[in-house]
C-alpha cells in the first residue's frame, strides 16, 4: 500500500521538496549569527635556560712567592678550571706571558745574546693541547698561547662540578742578568679560561678549531660589548 502511494509522482515531488528545503535554508542564512559554540584550551610549557659558568683557581699559588723575584726562580702556579655551571662545557685557556729584549745567562754562566724572550716559562700538563701559533702583541710585548682541554682532534667535555687538571704546575722566571730595567717592575702572567656548551655548537661541532671559532667570535662580541659599556660609563663619569 505504501509503495503504491509513493511510486506515482516520485520525480516531481522530489524536485519540489528539494526546492522548498533550499528555500528555507536560504532564508535563514540571511540572518546573522551572534553566538556560537566554542571551546578553548591552553598549555603552558616551561623551559630552563642552561648556564655555562667556570671558576679559575690556582690552589698552589702564593702571591708572596712572586715578590722580589730573582732570576731563574721557580714558583708553584697551577691554574685549573672548575665547571660550576649547569651544563657540561668545552674548556679553552689562554696564557699570556710578557716578553722583552733581554740578555739571559745559561746554567754554566755563559751569556746569551740579547733577544726577545719570554720572562716566564712553564710546561704544559697532560690533558691540555696547544692550539695554533703563539700570538704576539708587539705593542704590549705579550705572547699569548691558546690551549684546549682535550686533544687536537676533539674537545673534551668538562662535566658539571668537575675540574680540569692544572694547565701547568709551576712557572719559572727567566735567568736574566741585572741592569735591564726589570728591577722593581711588576710583570703579569695572565690566564683566561673560556667555556662553551658541548651541544649544538654550530650544528654539533666538537673539533677544537671549529668550536674555538664559534667561542672566540662570541667572546669577541662580549668583549666589545663590555668595552662599549665601559666607555659609556667613563664618558658619563667625565661629564659628571
Amino acid at each position: 500500500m505504501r509503495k503504491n502511494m509513493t511510486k506515482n509522482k516520485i520525480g516531481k515531488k522530489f524536485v519540489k521538496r528539494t526546492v522548498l528545503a533550499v528555500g528555507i535554508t536560504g532564508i535563514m542564512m540571511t540572518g546573522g549569527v551572534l553566538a556560537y559554540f566554542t571551546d578553548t584550551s591552553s598549555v603552558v610549557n616551561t623551559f630552563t635556560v642552561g648556564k655555562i659558568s667556570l671558576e679559575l683557581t690556582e690552589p698552589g699559588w702564593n702571591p708572596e712567592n712572586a715578590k722580589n723575584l730573582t732570576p731563574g726562580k721557580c714558583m708553584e702556579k697551577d691554574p685549573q678550571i672548575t665547571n660550576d655551571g649547569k651544563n657540561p662545557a668545552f674548556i679553552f685557556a689562554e696564557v699570556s706571558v710578557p716578553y722583552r729584549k733581554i740578555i739571559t745567562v745559561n746554567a754554566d754562566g755563559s751569556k746569551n745574546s740579547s733577544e726577545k724572550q719570554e720572562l716566564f716559562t712553564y710546561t704544559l700538563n697532560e690533558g691540555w693541547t696547544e692550539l695554533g701559533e703563539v700570538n704576539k702583541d708587539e705593542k704590549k710585548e705579550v705572547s699569548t698561547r691558546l690551549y684546549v682541554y682535550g686533544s687536537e682532534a676533539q674537545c673534551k667535555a668538562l662535566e658539571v662540578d668537575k675540574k680540569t687538571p692544572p694547565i701547568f704546575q709551576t712557572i719559572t722566571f727567566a735567568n736574566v742578568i741585572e741592569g735591564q730595567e726589570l728591577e722593581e717592575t711588576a710583570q703579569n702572567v695572565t690566564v683566561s679560561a673560556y667555556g662553551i656548551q658541548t651541544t649544538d655548537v654550530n650544528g654539533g661541532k666538537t673539533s677544537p678549531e671549529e668550536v674555538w671559532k664559534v667561542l672566540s667570535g662570541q667572546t669577541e662580541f662580549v668583549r666589545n660589548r663590555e668595552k662599549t659599556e665601559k666607555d659609556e660609563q667613563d664618558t658619563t663619569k667625565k661629564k659628571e
Partner: protein
Amino acid sequence: MNKIKLIATALCFLMLLSTLSVQSKAAGITELWNSFRSGNVAVEVKEYEEKDGELTAWKDNPVIMPGMEFSKILRIYNKGVECYIRAKIQSTEDNTRLEQMIFGMGKEWKKALDGYFYYRPVLKEDGVAELFQGIKIPVDFSQEHEEKILKLKIDIDAIQSKNFSPDFEAESPWGMVEIIESEKEKNYTINTYKKEKIEELEIVYLGESDSLMTNAKDFFTNFSVLMPGDTFGDIAVLKNTAEKDVSLYFYTGVLEESPLLDMIQLKIQAEINGEKRVVYDGNIRAEALAKKQLLCTIPAKSSGTLQFSVHAPDKMDNRYAELGSCVKWVFMTEKSRTFFLPSAPKTGDSVKEIVCIAVVMLVSGMGSLFALSRRKKNKY
C-alpha cells in the same frame, strides 16, 4: 452448562472490548517523533616529542641552550563537531623572537594582525591539526637568559564552522567573538540521525478504514546535530484518499525534557490547493502546541503539504551544547476515538493505555460475575 456459556460469553466480550479500544486509537491517530540533539565544539591539545621515530608524551622543563633544536609536536584533536581553530603563542620573553624559534608549522596556518595563527581549513570531526613540530633556540640567544625560566603559553580556540564564515584576509579573521571553554566533557560522541529510506514523508488518511497512517517514525531524520544558527526544514505530504473532506488535528508533547527546547523555534505551514497557512510559529515548548488544534482540512481525494522547520537561534551559547530532546507529534482526525484527552502526552502513555484496558476488563469482569450471581439467585 449455562454457567460455562455465560463465562465464555463474558470473556469474549472482554476481549472484544480490549481489541476495540486499541483499534480505535490506532484508527484515527498516528504519531511521529521529533528528535533533537545539539552539537558541541570541543578540542583537546596534546604535546609530543619525537625520538628515534617514535612519539612520546612531551616532558616539560627541558634545559635549553643556544643553537639547540628539539622536537616538540603540538597537536589539536577535534572532539566535537566541525570547527575552525586558532592559536596564540605567547612567551615570557620577546614574542617576535619566539616565533623565530618555532619550526614545522604547516601552510594551513596563517598569522593575522591580531596575533593569532589561524588554521584555515575546517577541522573535521575527529580531525587532527598540527601547530608546529619543534623549537630551535637561536645561536645568538642572549646569555642574559642564563638560568632563567621561560614559559611558553599556547592558547587554542575553537569555534563552530557551521554558520560561521571567517575572513582570513581581515585583521581579525574571526571578528569580535567571545570564546569560552566548552562546559561538556571532551569525550563527545556525535549522534547522527540516519535518514530513513523513504521518498518522502507522508501522512495519509485512508477513508475506507477511517484511519491515519504515516510512513516514517521521525520527522527529522536527515540532520545530525543542531548548532546555533541552524535551520532544518522538511516537507510531509498530506493525503486524503476518502470520498469526503477530512480535517486533521495535531498536538505535541515533550518526551525528553531539555533546556534545548526553550531555545528551539518551530514553524509549521500547511498548503492545501495552493493556499498556504501558517499553523504555528514559535517556541517548540509552547503550551499552545500541547492542545489539539486544526492543522488543515484536506478535500476529498486531494493532497497537500505540511512544511515544518526548526531553528536553533543565534543566541544559543555553550550552555546549550550537547543536549538532546524528543518531541512527540500526534495527528488525528476530527472523529478520532481515543480514550485520552488530547493533552501533552508523557513518556508513560503506553502505561496509561494498559491501565485503561485493565480497568475496562475489571469492570466487565465484575459485571459478568454480578450477572452470574443474579442468575443463581433466580434459580433458587
